[in-house]
């Protein structure tokens, strides 16, 4: 188990748990970023401040603070 922010470019992972609270959690879920979802890390801004991930067919930009709250396991 690790955090989404710790993943490298090109890595594919499965979401285990969302540690985000209320609204942010709802938002992530409505993006399809929920338990069991398969996520691929596409791009990273310098110093991983912001990352681009792929969930299903959709690409999503996340800031490091948010990616920190997503527990994943490597596939």
């Amino acid at each position, binding site marked *: 188990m690790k955090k989404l922010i710790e993943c490298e470019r090109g890595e594919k992972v499965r979401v285990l748990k969302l540690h985000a609270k209320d609204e942010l959690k709802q938002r992530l879920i409505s993006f*399809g970023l929920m338990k069991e979802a398969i996520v691929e890390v596409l791009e990273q801004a310098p110093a991983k401040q912001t990352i681009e991930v792929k969930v299903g067919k959709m690409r999503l930009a996340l800031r490091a603070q948010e990616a920190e709250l997503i527990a994943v396991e490597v596939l």
Partner: protein
Amino acid sequence: MEEKSCPVISKHIKVALVGQPNVGKSMLINSVSNAHLHVGNFSGVTVDKTEVLFDYKGYNFTVVDLPGTYAFTDYTIEERVTHDYLCAEEYDVIINVVDSTNLTKNLQLTAELLTMSKKVVIALNMSDEAQKEGIEINAEYMSELMGVPCVKVSAVTKEGIEKLIDTVLQKHQDKKVKPKLVFSEPVEEEIAQIVWYLDKHRFQSENSYRNIAINLLKNNKKTYEKLHDNPIWTELQPILIEASKHIELHHDSDDVKEAFAEEYASFNRGIVAEVLKQKVKQEKKTITEKIDSVLIHPLFGIPIFLFFMWSLFQLTFEVGAIPMDYIDAFFGWMGDTVGATISNEDIRSLVVDGIIAGVGAVVLFVPNIIILFIGIALLESTGYMSRVAFLLDGFFHKFGLHGQSFIPLVTGFGCSIPAYMSARILKNDRDRLLTLFIIGFMSCGARLPVYVLFAGAFFSPEMAGNILFIIYISGAMIGIIAAKVLKMTVFKGVDEPFVMEMPKYRLPSLKLIWHTVLTKTMMYLKKAGTFIAGASMLVWFLSNYPHNLALEAEYAQKIAVESSANEKQKLANQRSSELLEQSYLGSIGKFSEPLFAPLGFDWKMSVALQTGLAAKEVVVSTLGVLYSLGSDVTEGDNTLVGAISKNISFASAVAFIVVIMIYLPCLAASVVFTREAGGIRYFFYLLAFTSIVAYSLAFIAYNVTRILV
């Protein structure tokens, strides 16, 4: 769909368009009606509801375009608009627009809509794109499985549009059909129990017992409020608590909303697995991902963006300059021709020196404006907008701004008014207010004429494009620094999360760009013909009256005595400028001159800045009127550019540009700002803030330039 129908006897249908952001709702409305709603390839293009009317088969349709929403929440203001509309307003049918190329995610919202007991039709939009990607959807089977009619459409090719409207008509006449939303067994058991309970007590309601049960289990606030005062509540509540516990246990979660989201997701996965066939195997990396690996490259991403910006301003100046001479010549010719037909000297001056000079000075810059608009339209419609927000988020974050602030800020380069509106995509009120305060620092299209005028007056054509680029960038930088200051002092608080969808890259159709640019350009021209013409007349009047007959007579005498033509001319010019100085406008200018003297402005510049509070184009038209009056027939160069480089020192010009860059955009924008910020006091804060910053920076710029040059 043009046949007119009588508004009295024909039947009315009100349709609400609901869907996730960027699925083509607005474009779909454009393709069924003659509307030109704003379309763009990023989330949050539409931020307010808009009604569009059209007739079809004897029906009066009212279609309501709503902001896109990911889920039924009030995350941002624009999502609240949609949510409130759906819950509180009257309408007959919902068209739920979904993106066929991303069905699973889109159906997440659909599932929530289906518990509202409204008539729903699903529009499977982007069928053209789905076809290209080898996605095949069986719409009939999907309709059957979901219990809701599904129609394949494409807003671009207009395929299936008629069928969609026919289906809406049919659905409108049908009795309500229960959609088939199926949950996992444990959840179904709990629903059944609550339904049984409601049934036992013959609970009165419009919505079906099943939907009420689902909404109760989901902790839906509105449903709770409705039932809370009902006598059955005391008995129902323990049942609900027990049921929620069971569901949470089943989903191994302590959040029943999350549990329901998972329920929906697995239902949707089931539907999609049944109805969707991926015919062509997808490549490992989609085109969008390939482009992204270049455009948002950690090292090259930002330089590439800066290069695009720089090119845009080069083009704006270089290409924009080509037709300028012709436009200038045209208005010069028009002034002469029209002037020759008017015998009354006062009216002639009003038409030629007032209206034609003022409007001409503004129309002159239409080519530059068009190029700028094309640039913004490309940014909006290709999908690059979200990428820049991604690239700049880290940088913005350091200055206390949200990455998504980029979208309203960029919109601000076109016009501040839509920019203020689009700040609604920011979730947090503090972030939104902060963004509202600095949108004005992004130089809007109306300021471009001032910059082009001054850059052209003081720099060679090769340099002018670079100067424009520098002006825009420094405006933006000052804005960002201002944001930091505001964030540290007024808008303190925690940072909001940044989660944003990155749309796929799309090649915008020429038609779309054409329409976007045309609409905005026509607005600019319309403003020139109405507002600016009116303002020019006012400026003309204020600068011609009161007549000073004594002074005129004095000069007439002097000129008559003088023999050399050269001297006569000199005296005539002297007369004009003296008359101008003692006019109403001259008095205002003279009165405020001391205030602006530390910035090196003469009274004409001071006046132009003040009239510019109405609109920035008026700065140029005022300068146009003042300088065309002040020197009737001049030697050699009689363009405004020439007049400016002759009469204004370089240091004053720099200070002038700095003020234009920073102070209030215009009257109309101030009104919208006040409304969006939510109170008149914010307007006064903005006024004070921008005036102080503008004055201090202009003062510094003036003195530094004077020392250096």
